C-alpha cells in the first residue's frame, strides 16, 4: 500500500516539475484566454440593448457575463487538452507497451499526470483569474448560500474527474480504430455547443433543451456555473449532483473496462 502511494507520489511530483518548465509561456497563455470575454461582454450588451425586458430565458446581461466567467473556471477543471489524442497516439506508436511492465497502469498514470498539470495550472492561473474576477465583480450577484457554494466546489472536482474519464475513454477507443481524430472532431463540436461553453443551455429550444439536459456534457461547463448563479432550483440541486456523480462513475468504469479489453486485444504495433 505504502509502496503504491510512493509510486503515485513520484509520478505526481515528476509531472509537476515537467509542467513548471514552461511557466512564462504559461502565464501569458492563461491571461490571453480572457480576451474573448471582452467581446462577449460587448456582444451581450448589444443583444440586451435590443431586448425590451432586460432578461432572456431568466438571465440578465450581468448574469450572462458572470456565467461566461464561471464556465471558464469549470473548464479549467474539466478540459483535458491532448488527453484523448495522447492516449490514442501512445496506442498507435506502441509506447503503451511500457505500461504492461510498469507498476502503474495507463489510466492511473495519465490521471496523475493530469492532476500534476492541473495543480500547477491552478497555482499559476489563480493570479489572472483573481484579477479578472475582481475587475468583473459587479457582474456577479454576490456569493451564493453555503449549500450552493459547497455544491459548486464539489461539482468542480467532479467535472475534473468526469472530463478526465470521458476523454480517456475516447482515447482508449484507439485500441479498436487506431485513428480517432474524426471521433474527436465530433466530440469537440458537441462539447463546444452542448456543454454550455458557448451559451447558457437555457437558450436551446425544446426538445433540444431536454435532450442536452440528459447528456453528460453539460456537467463540464454549464452545471458548475449554473449552480454558482443559483439557476438550479434548490429541490433539484442534489438530485443533479447525484446524476453528475453517476455519469462520472459510468465513465470511470467504462474507462477501466476499455483499458483491460484493449490490452487483451492489443497486438503491439510500432517499434
Amino acid at each position, binding site marked *: 500500500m505504502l509502496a503504491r502511494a510512493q509510486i503515485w507520489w513520484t509520478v505526481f511530483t515528476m509531472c509537476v516539475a515537467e509542467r513548471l518548465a514552461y511557466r512564462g509561456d504559461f502565464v501569458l497563455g492563461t491571461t490571453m484566454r480572457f480576451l474573448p470575454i471582452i467581446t462577449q461582454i460587448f456582444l451581450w450588451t448589444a443583444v440586451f440593448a*435590443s431586448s425590451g425586458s432586460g432578461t432572456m430565458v431568466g438571465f440578465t446581461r450581468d448574469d450572462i457575463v458572470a456565467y461566461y466567467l464561471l464556465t471558464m473556471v469549470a473548464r479549467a477543471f474539466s478540459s483535458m487538452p491532448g488527453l484523448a489524442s495522447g492516449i490514442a497516439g501512445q496506442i498507435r506508436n506502441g509506447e503503451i507497451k511500457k505500461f504492461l511492465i510498469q507498476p502503474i497502469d495507463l489510466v492511473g498514470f495519465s490521471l496523475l499526470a493530469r492532476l500534476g498539470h492541473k495543480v500547477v495550472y491552478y497555482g499559476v492561473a489563480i493570479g489572472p483569474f483573481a484579477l479578472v474576477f475582481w475587475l468583473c465583480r459587479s457582474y456577479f450577484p454576490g456569493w451564493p448560500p453555503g449549500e450552493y457554494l459547497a455544491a459548486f466546489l464539489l461539482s468542480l472536482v467532479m467535472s475534473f474527474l468526469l472530463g478526465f474519464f470521458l476523454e480517456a475513454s475516447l482515447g482508449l477507443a484507439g485500441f479498436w480504430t487506431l485513428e480517432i481524430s474524426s471521433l474527436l472532431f465530433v466530440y469537440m463540436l458537441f462539447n463546444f455547443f452542448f456543454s454550455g461553453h458557448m451559451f447558457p443551455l437555457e437558450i436551446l429550444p425544446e426538445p433540444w433543451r431536454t435532450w442536452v439536459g440528459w447528456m453528460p456534457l453539460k456537467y463540464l461547463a454549464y452545471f458548475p456555473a449554473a449552480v454558482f448563479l443559483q439557476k438550479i432550483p434548490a429541490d433539484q440541486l442534489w438530485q443533479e449532483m447525484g446524476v453528475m456523480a453517476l455519469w462520472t462513475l459510468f465513465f470511470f468504469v467504462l474507462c477501466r473496462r476499455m483499458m483491460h479489453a484493449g490490452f487483451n486485444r492489443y497486438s503491439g504495433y510500432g517499434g
Partner: protein
Amino acid sequence: MHRPSYLAVFWMFARNSLIRDMTFRTNYIIEVIFGVSWALMNLGFYTLIYRLMYADGDGHASIAGWSQYEFFVFIATTILVNSLVEGLFMSNAEELSELTRTGGLDFALLKPIDTQFLVSLQRINWSAIPKLVLALALLAYSIPRIEGLTLSPIQFVLYPLYVIMGTLILYSVMIALAATSIWLGRNQSLYDFWFYITNFSRYPMEIYAGPFGSPLRYAFTYFIPILVVINVPAATLAKPLSAADWPLAGFALFATVASLAFSRWVFQRALLSYRSASS
C-alpha cells in the same frame, strides 16, 4: 536572369496540393464536414439569439443595428474571408515556424523566386472550398430577406474587392506573426494571440461602444485594422450605401496597402536574422 511566372508557380502549388488532398481523401472529407458543421452551428446560435430577441422585445431585433438577415450577411462574410485565409495561407504560416526550427527555410531561400511568395502559398488547403460555397449560399439566402434593401451594381463590384482586401489584411497580420518565429525559434503563444486578436474582428464594430468600447474600436480599426476586415465588406453589401461610410471604405484601401507593406518589412527583417538550424 529568367523571371519565374508567379501565376504558373501558384497554379502548380494549387495542383500539387489538390493531388495531396485527394490522396488522403477521408481526412479531406472529415475536414470539410467539421468546417461546415462548425459554421452551421455558429449560425444556429445566432438564429436562436434573434429568436429570443423577437420573442422578448417589441417585435424588432437587432445586434448593434444589424437585423437578423443583415447579420447573416455579416456571418457569411466572416466565413468567406476566413475560408480564404485558411485555404490560402493558414497552413503555410504554421509551416514557417517548422521550417525555421528544422532549417528547411534554407531551401526556400535558395530558390530563384520571392521567398515570401514561396513560403506563403506553397500549400493550398482545398478543404476550405465547401465553406466558400456555404458562405455564398448564405449570402444568396439572406440578401433578398433584408427589408428595404435594393442592391446597386456598385455594391456587387465593391463587395468582392473588400473581401479580398480583408483577406489581405488578415494575411499581413498572420505572416508578420509567423515571421517572428524566425527570431524566436518557436511561438505557440503567438498563434494563440492570432486566434484571440482575430476574435475581435468577428463581430460588428458597432458593439464596441461606451468608455471602454470606443477606444478598443479605434485601436482595432486604425492601429491594427482587423475590425475593417469583415465590417467594411459586410456593411457594403447588407446596408444601403451612404456618404457617411466612404471615409471608412477609403481607409480600408489604405489599411490593406499599409498592412501588406508593414508585413513585408517585418518578413524581410526577420529573414535577415535567420541563421539556419543545425542539421
